[in-house]
């Protein structure tokens, strides 16, 4: 009773973290590709809706944040980033910022991947009778 988070839910959550990391990498790549496009504005991807609905579910009586619930499958939202200084050609892509985002997303992906592959190893260990 104390722990409602099961293996399947954890794996689903890890999968979602990887999907999100890839979405962030995609957006950073497209910002980098458009670093010299006049009038292009930096884009960011956000998953706030997913978090909000999760928190609502958590506060409305459900026991803790369930990583497996389907409401977490919200579509990512791509928005233009506010508050970056624009260059004279109307472009506000910053090389270091995008490379940092790219590296950060890649690190998040690696973390989720490492945990997921450890989980898979455990399952394989169990299937093979500990051999």
């Amino acid at each position, binding site marked *: 009773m104390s722990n409602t988070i099961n293996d399947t839910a954890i794996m689903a959550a890890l999968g979602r973290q*990887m*999907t999100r*990391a*890839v*979405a962030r*990498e*995609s*957006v*950073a*790549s*497209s910002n*980098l*590709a*458009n*670093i*010299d*496009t*006049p009038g*292009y504005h930096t*884009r960011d*991807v956000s998953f706030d809706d997913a978090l909000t609905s999760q928190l609502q579910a958590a506060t409305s009586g459900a026991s803790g944040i369930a990583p497996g619930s389907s409401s977490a499958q919200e*579509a*990512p939202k*791509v928005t233009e980033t506010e508050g970056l200084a624009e260059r004279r050609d109307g472009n506000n892509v910053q*090389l270091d910022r*995008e*490379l940092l985002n*790219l*590296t950060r997303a*890649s690190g998040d*992906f*690696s973390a989720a*991947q490492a945990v*997921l*592959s450890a989980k*898979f190893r455990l399952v394989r260990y169990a299937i093979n009778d500990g051999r």
Partner: protein
Amino acid sequence: MSSMWSAINASASGLDAQRARMEVAASNLANADSVHGPNNQPYRRREVMLESSDPDGFGATLTRASGSGVEAAGVKVTDVVEDQSPFGRRYEPSSPDADSDGYVATPNVSVPEEMVDMLGAARAYQANLAAIGVVKDTIQKALDLAK
């Protein structure tokens, strides 16, 4: 998965665009002293026009319709235009191209400007290459899950 490839495609389009910029800058530099072109005019500096392009095709449409991922926007070279700023003038009465006052019209190319442009393009090319490397590593890591 499709959005991983779309990220690589976007970076590849960035490589393409930056290479075009470098080629145009090289051609401008090469012709910095070409006072006599095929139309009897000095060489006019060329410039690359870039435009952001949202991806199309089956994969992008499917991703948009299902709202399941992010399609990366690439960049494309829409045009290479001639810079219409005025030509320079150099006093050289002995030249066959000199006008009645002894001045020769010179290309509107500024060498330092082209060098800076080229350097910017080279750096942006490297950034796109780095992005491809990161996404490629990510795909490899995803495949490693199946090991």
